[in-house]
Each structure stands twice: as C-alpha cells, then as structure tokens.
C-alpha cells in the first residue's frame, strides 16, 4: 500500500475568511503572527500493485478532479516513506 499526504489550500488570490479570523485572534493574543491560511489535510491510501507512474497519475487525477476545486484551490502531496 502507498499512503499519500494531501494538502489543499485556497489559492493566494482568494480571500480566506477563516484564516483571517484565526490570524486576528492570534494577534489579539499578542502572538507575533504575520498571516494565517486555513487549508485541508487528507491521507489517501492507494491499492497495492500500482507502479510509481500509475500511483502518481491516479493521485494527480484524484486531487485535480475531486479533492480540490481548481477554480479556488491548489494542492500538493507527498508519499509516506
């Protein structure tokens, strides 16, 4: 099995009201915070028997079609060692 860690965040150009609210709260608590963006973290475990290229292609497509909305979000992923 190969496990991937997927992160989905709002594009830089999109205002993130959740992030702004957390950021304001942290500043009010006197933490030296410059900016906060809130995103999503997902773990996706793929079936056995895929070679490296197949699993990369499958996960790319999953991220692009389902886990993120390319209109507003971007994604990154890495594989468990």
């Amino acid at each position, binding site marked *: 099995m190969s496990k991937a860690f997927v992160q989905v965040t709002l594009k830089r150009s999109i205002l993130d009201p959740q992030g702004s609210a957390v950021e304001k709260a942290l500043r009010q608590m006197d933490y030296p915070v410059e900016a906060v963006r809130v995103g999503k973290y997902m773990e996706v475990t793929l079936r056995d028997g895929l070679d490296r290229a197949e699993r990369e292609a499958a996960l790319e497509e999953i991220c692009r079609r389902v886990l993120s*909305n390319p209109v507003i979000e971007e994604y990154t992923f890495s594989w468990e060692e």
Partner: protein
Amino acid sequence: MKIGIVRFPGSNCETDCLEAWRVMGAAADMLWHQETSVRGYDLIVLPGGFSYGDYLRTGAIARFSPIMADVIRHAREGGLVWGICNGFQILTECGLLPGALLRNAGLSFICAPQFLRVEKAAPPFTGAYAPGQVICLPINHGEGNYCIDAAGRRELEEEGRVVFRYVTAEGAADAAGNPNGSAGNIAGIVNRAGNVLGMMPHPERAVENLTGGEDGRGLFRSLLSAGRERHGHRDET
C-alpha cells in the same frame, strides 16, 4: 412541462420545491440521486440543502452522483436546469456554471430576507419580472460568497449573464447590500446558452404571502410559460 426535482442525501429544500410547484399549479417528480436518466424531463431542479453533509466542499460529492452525469448531458443538449442554493454550488462544482461559492465573508451562516435586483429579465427563467425590479427573497446559506477571476467576471457582465444581484432596499448593489462578500454582489447567473440558472436565494420559499411573500413566483411563472412555448414548438415539428 415535465419537472424533476433531484433529491440527494442531505437535500432539505426538495419538498419546499415540490410544494412551490404545486402552489403554482404544476406537478413535479422527485428523482433519487442514484437514478441514471432524466430523459423525458424539460426542467431539472437541484434543490437546496447540504448534499453529502457538504463534506470536502459544498456540492463536491453530489456532483459525481449517478444522476448528475445525465443532468449534465441534459444541460448540454439545451434542457433546463435550475440550481437553488446547494443546487447552485453543485452546478459550479460540475462546471456547468463558472466560478465557485466560498464561505461567507463574515463567516456567519445567514438566514434572512434579502433584497435582490433582477438584472436579466428574460425567458426562460425571469421573463415574468421587469428589468431592474427589486424583489425580496430569503437567503439561507453559509457558503454563498460567489468568487470568480477577473476575466470570468468580465465575461459574465459583458454577456449579460448576471441574473440577480444582492442590493439594499433602495436597489443599490453596494457593500451595504452585499450580505456575503460575493464578487459584484452576484446572487445568480446563467450559462452562456441561458438554459442553466444557479442562484443562492430561495424563491421556492417565497410563493405564498403566509410564508415569505410572493416575490419568488416570477421564476415559476417564467418557467411554466417557457415550458408551454417549448412544447408548442415541439408539437409543430
């Protein structure tokens, strides 16, 4: 006019839609999201609610349910599709309408009457309204903040595809009239062909004075007369 209302797990306005059509003198069928065909229907309504619990993103999972593949086919062939609230979110997720709906700018869930200006008063959806008419419909959403890039926004405006805008009681589409931070105060849009409408406000909750007024009736009336015309043409050919 054969009308189908799609019920997804988590939909909660489908019965309101059914009742609104009944009040307006039309029958509608409830369609389960696992069905694979909408053939024979003139209009498909995607109702409000929280399909699949809004997991991942609003509308993101509903968009892949079996019935949606055929709703997309229906829309591409010119069939009418009307997405209300969560239905609008599903339509942007599946690419039938541009843009996306984000968390409201103020982060709060809003449930309140809201003034709207009818920017596009034309068949099939809004022919019964006057251009620029200010109406009041309930809004009921946490994620109605319409977002689109500058080029997409320009296209919508230039092609006259903004159907409703959030406004003040006086009809001003300014910050004071914008409840959720939507780009250009946009509350509803159509696709380029004009057969797919997505809107956040709930006209199905505004067809009777007892509950929410009658300002929503214009949409139902417009669609019913569009349906009569479509069938008229079909009978001729």
